């Protein structure tokens, strides 16, 4: 019997067929250049379309014109005059919102009374469009920087809380039991086991929070801002100056990509232990 199958290769009746491959996939690998190529191709198509005329100048500005506007902005020194205050607002607001958000999230994760009290509150705050509250913040914190920080802080706070307490819930309980069984103090367990264990979830929440912060930056600069990327975009928008509008939008996109890359960098440094 086994002889027959072994010599089967010589028998024409049982033709050998390679086993079809059906594994693979579902394992994303980094191909950094692909994203870059997608950008370049889209921009080239837009350039071609606007030059050839099958995209009208009212639909989309010429990418090369946008670039020229951007160059002007850079040369006149206005770029940094706008970028500086925006980055400061983003940094202060997000830092505040994320710090408070992570703290509240950890408390919700650790104490059942805090959870019972705060989770419904967070659920009530989450769906409020924060932009709608801008006038309120202006009354509370003034038309200056205060209301802008508050809007960005508030906007980053809720998603950070939700991501953080979810992450704390997902920390391996056996590790916490282990800490207790070795007599670690409560504070040591939180600092050395709960927080590092929650870090992956907190960082992926941070990605979302910071994207929201950039969105809210523009909203925050709608009222009482002379300089800032948002102010620049809004001015251009009200004048239907599409080149400047797009130059501003590109700056925001680049900001988003940079923030996302920074978080990726932090993840690679801090989460190298993950399998």
């Amino acid at each position, binding site marked *: 019997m086994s002889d027959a199958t072994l010599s089967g290769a010589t028998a024409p009746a049982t033709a050998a067929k390679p086993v079809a491959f059906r594994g693979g996939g579902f394992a994303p690998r980094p191909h950094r250049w692909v994203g870059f190529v997608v950008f370049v191709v889209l921009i080239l198509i837009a350039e071609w379309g606007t030059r050839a005329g099958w995209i009208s100048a009212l639909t989309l500005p010429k990418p090369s014109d946008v670039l020229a506007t951007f160059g002007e902005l850079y040369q006149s020194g206005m770029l940094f005059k706008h970028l500086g205050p925006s980055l400061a607002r983003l940094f202060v607001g997000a830092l505040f919102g994320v710090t408070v958000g992570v703290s509240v999230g950890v408390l919700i994760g650790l104490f059942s009374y805090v959870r019972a009290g705060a989770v419904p509150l967070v659920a009530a705050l989450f769906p409020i469009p924060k932009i709608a509250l801008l006038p309120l913040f202006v009354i509370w914190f003034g038309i200056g920087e205060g209301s802008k920080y508050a809007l960005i802080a508030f906007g980053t706070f809720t998603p950070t809380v939700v991501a953080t307490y979810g992450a704390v819930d997902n920390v391996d309980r056996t590790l916490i039991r282990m800490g207790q069984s070795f007599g670690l*103090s409560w504070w040591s367990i939180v600092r050395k086991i709960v927080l590092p264990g929650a870090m992956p979830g907190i960082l992926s929440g941070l990605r979302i929070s910071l994207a929201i912060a950039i969105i809210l930056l523009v909203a925050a600069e709608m009222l009482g801002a002379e300089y800032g990327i948002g102010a620049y975009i809004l001015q251009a928008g009200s004048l239907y100056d599409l080149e400047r509008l797009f130059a501003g939008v590109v700056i925001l996109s680049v900001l988003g990509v940079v923030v996302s890359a920074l978080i990726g960098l932090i993840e690679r440094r801090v*989460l190298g232990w993950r399998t």
Partner: protein
Amino acid sequence: MDIRLDGISHSYDGVAVMNDITLDIPAGRIVCIVGPSGCGKSTLLRFIGGLERPGQGRISQIGEPPEGCLNPLTYIFQDFALLPWRTVEGNISLVLEDHGIKGARAREIIGDVLARTKLTDFAKALPKQLSGGMKQRVAIARALAVNPAVMLMDEPLSALDSQTRELLMDDLISLWSRQPFTAVYVTHNLNEAVRLGHQIVVLSRRPGRIQEVVTIDKPLDQRQFGDPDLDEKQKYLWQLMRDEARAADAELINV
């Protein structure tokens, strides 16, 4: 330091899981607890280590833990419970930091326990780089670092393949022979029980009661793989357990 269990009973949500367990754990001996799954072995071990409170009964320690003992009752878990973000060294230093042991003294202790568990070359490795057997050796090293009076081991070798298990049993025996420690060793593997146990406590199915305590007098370092005396004991244990195990297996799990 001895441990005494006195009339321990417990139920979860009205379901009795153990019934009137009275047991002495003498210093310097390894007491194995065997029993069908769900009979309350892990629960009993959590009671002994103070991670949970029994419904009835008392657990007392008799005598003081030896000098220099940082954590008298120390666990070794089935799933290792290593912090994946800390190196081998860092995982051991974790349990020293809270006792204020840092710097040179910590390095000395870590060096010593790593040498005893043959892990010196892996001090800087992360858990993800280690095999299962090595992870459990790290957990053993971590337990040794706090100089425990009693080691509480919950199926420490059950997540490992049988060859690794043999190797680690040899390691445990040589550790014990060099410096006898007290241990409560929970397992469902009767072979481990007869190789490592001075006393083997057989529990009935849920609610767990002590069915019999089997004593093996042969010194640990003379118990070889495939020893006929041990096989005899193992067969006897299996006879004790077979009907219980079958009944436990056929029970509905009403959790």
